[in-house]
């Protein structure tokens, strides 16, 4: 792997050692790591001098997208990284696992009769432990129903009939995909969620990050949160996206480059011609795993693709923002995407990157296609495309978990391009995959013992999900290879970790 990267140098790492700008010590460790891993042509970027913000109208320094979004939300004209500010929240999302705790804290701190700050700005999306007989899990959905009823929460995507998810007209499924599909993600806004993958929404050019129950309880009562403005790392991806490559490969490439703590406390800003060519769902996949690099949030500058998606789903007005030309970035990475190859993250870390083709001797036991990272409509389309191109049957159990009701319906309704009208579901069936199951987070994080596709044995699984630490999908000795939908489908066909080019070229 290393040799091919060095000879073709698909990227140049420019990084600077931040001087004492008040960042927590861990950020210095992560920058150091960047310097250790970069190869050839290290250029130290020149950083604009940091000026402290002033309320008396001094010369304005350029701001990054994230700085601008936070400044506006804090009703300030200027912020710099390191500032601790009170920020107005546009949307707060919670789900079945953390919602009860967040509301519990809200009531404890604001009083049993307290009312939430704005019942139209809270979105409650049960999705984690839904299709299970675990009594506590079921109870948590009931608890959320009670809170939503009492507080008149406008957006509660409820489920009451666990036997047939389609019998529930309001139920959506995976929160991050549902937020986008239901029009809750808008450029320029601040979105918080009690889930680490809330950073997914940064694909829409907004500030989106995960928080804990206590912070969420605070937001429920006040509509505000105390945040420290993060510095921004810029990732510029240029070049034509190869037909066998997906956004998942891009983000695994990046995390492999900077490590699981490479972006701790920082914003990851993605731009460049490749980014501009990505669909919204692909952009969501990219931002989804920002947290796996330790990032605070991810952002992508909104454009026509973004506006088209958003305006089709919401009529709430929004105001996009963009990084200034003279904004300061703490690190700059450039990638020539045309030179990249499909990659996986080997057990047991999302930064344990390897070329898919170099893992072809790894025998696998199962494949899992699902989650907020890799269970969206386009993820299933990609897998179906590959299965169709191959015309073969899978060699290992292949589990399909559409992220939301809408994705599930797309799987059954949409035809795969070039397949003579066959739907994704038909192709999956012909390839011998398991029947697409009820929408939820499923086995991405293991879950209660009876969760569909949970890793209950020490097996090897190729998965389109986001984390592969020990025990992530259930069994502590389970071996999880994180991969793109193409790579997952290719691997299912051979029973080994497989580069999708085996079937796509």
């Amino acid at each position, binding site marked *: 792997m290393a040799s091919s990267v060095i000879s073709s140098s698909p990227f140049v790492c420019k990084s600077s050692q931040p001087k004492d700008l*008040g960042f*927590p*010590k*861990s950020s210095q*460790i992560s920058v150091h790591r960047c310097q250790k891993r970069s190869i050839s042509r290290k250029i130290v970027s020149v950083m604009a001098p940091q000026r402290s913000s002033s309320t008396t109208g001094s010369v304005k320094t350029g701001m990054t997208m994230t700085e601008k979004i936070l400044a506006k939300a804090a009703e300030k004209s200027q912020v710099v990284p390191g500032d*601790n500010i*009170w920020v107005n929240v546009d949307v707060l999302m919670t789900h079945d*696992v*953390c919602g*009860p*705790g967040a509301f*519990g804290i809200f009531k*404890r*701190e*604001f*009083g*049993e009769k*307290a009312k939430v700050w704005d019942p139209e700005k809270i979105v409650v999306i049960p999705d*984690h*432990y839904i299709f299970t007989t*675990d009594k*506590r*899990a079921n109870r*948590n959905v009931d*608890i959320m129903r009670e809170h939503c009823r009492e507080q008149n929460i406008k957006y509660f995507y409820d489920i009451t009939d666990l036997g047939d998810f389609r019998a529930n007209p309001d139920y959506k499924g995976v929160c991050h995909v549902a937020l986008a599909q239901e029009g809750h993600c808008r450029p320029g806004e601040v979105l918080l*969620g*009690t*889930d*680490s993958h809330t950073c997914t929404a940064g694909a829409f050019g907004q500030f989106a990050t*995960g*928080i*804990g*129950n*206590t*912070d969420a309880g*605070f937001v429920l009562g*006040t509509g*505000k949160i*105390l945040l*420290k403005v993060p510095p921004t790392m810029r990732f510029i991806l240029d070049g034509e996206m190869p037909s066998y490559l997906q956004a998942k490969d891009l983000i695994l490439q990046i995390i492999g480059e900077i490590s*699981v*703590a490479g972006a*701790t*406390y920082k914003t990851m800003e993605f731009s460049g011609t490749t980014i501009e060519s990505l669909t919204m769902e692909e952009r969501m996949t990219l931002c989804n795993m920002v*947290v796996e690099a*330790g990032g*605070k949030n991810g952002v992508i500058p909104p454009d026509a693709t973004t506006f088209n998606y958003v305006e089709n789903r919401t009529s709430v007005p929004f105001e996009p923002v963009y990084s200034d030309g003279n904004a300061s970035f703490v690190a700059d990475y450039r990638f020539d995407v045309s030179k990249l190859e499909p990659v996986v993250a080997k057990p047991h*870390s999302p930064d344990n990157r390897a070329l898919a083709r170099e893992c072809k001797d790894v025998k696998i036991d199962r494949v899992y296609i699902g989650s907020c990272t890799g269970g969206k409509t386009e993820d299933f389309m990609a897998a179906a495309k590959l299965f169709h191109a191959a015309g073969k049957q899978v060699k290992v159990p292949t589990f399909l978990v559409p992220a939301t009701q809408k994705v599930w319906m797309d799987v059954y309704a949409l035809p795969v391009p070039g397949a003579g009208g066959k739907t994704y579901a038909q192709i999956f069936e012909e390839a011998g995959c398991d029947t697409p199951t009820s929408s939820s987070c499923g086995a991405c*994080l*293991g*879950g*209660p*013992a009876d969760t569909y596709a949970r890793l209950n044995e020490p097996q090897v699984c190729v998965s389109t999900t986001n*984390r592969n*630490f*020990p*025990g*992530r999908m259930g069994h*502590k*000795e389970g071996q999880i290879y994180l991969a793109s939908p193409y790579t997952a489908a290719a691997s299912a066909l051979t029973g080994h970790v497989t580069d999708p080019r085996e079937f796509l070229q």
Partner: protein
Amino acid sequence: MENPLSSRFGEHLRVCPKLSSDGRQRRRNHGGDDDDPFAPTSTASFNLKPLVTRSSSAFVTRSSAAASPQERKTFHGLCYVVGDNIDTDQIIPAEFLTVVPSNSDEYSKLGSHALTGLPASYKNRFVELGETKTRYSIVIGGENFGCGSSREHAPVCLGAAGAKSVVAQSFARIFFRNAVATGEVYPLDAEVRVCKECRTGDVATVELREEESVLINHTTGKEYRLNAIGDAGPVIDAGGIFAYARKAGMIPSAAA
């Protein structure tokens, strides 16, 4: 076991005049557990003489008053050492997330699952089977401690189990923030690889001061400087995000 403190008694008189493990202003996320059965002077699982026996009249009780920054906070007890990138699934496996931490009965149950996600290579369990409390007060970590999910169950289960502090080489940000917001465990950055310097079972003290905080490993006799708590300081000193916001006038003082 041989009293590991006896030989260090004289050396550490300077740094540890008072033995108190409750560095937190108040425990927030559970009901009625203010009598800490794990105050070190009464720790049942191991016999340690306090370094200095002194009346605690000079020490402000922590139950309601916010600590002033000048006050010393000290945690003392056994270390439990883990490696790098201990993610939230290892701290609290996802199957236990159905437990609601703000529910007082469930809070203590959460403690019994703390760090049960660690692989089999960890020979010592953090919490013994069937127990809800740990014998270890200080978790010593490597880099990126607490990475992964935003689940607050992670710092909460450590606190529920009785840990007082996590001293790691570096922290993942959501875990750090949640630890500060809940006040469940005191998160501290070390400057060196303390996870290599300490062993599970070492006796240690963490001392927090205005200028310089330290981790003292009594078993090895070594001391390590800890980074200042930084911007989280005012929030911790106030007693968590709600208390801080009340002090700052962001929210009204008393809940209805």
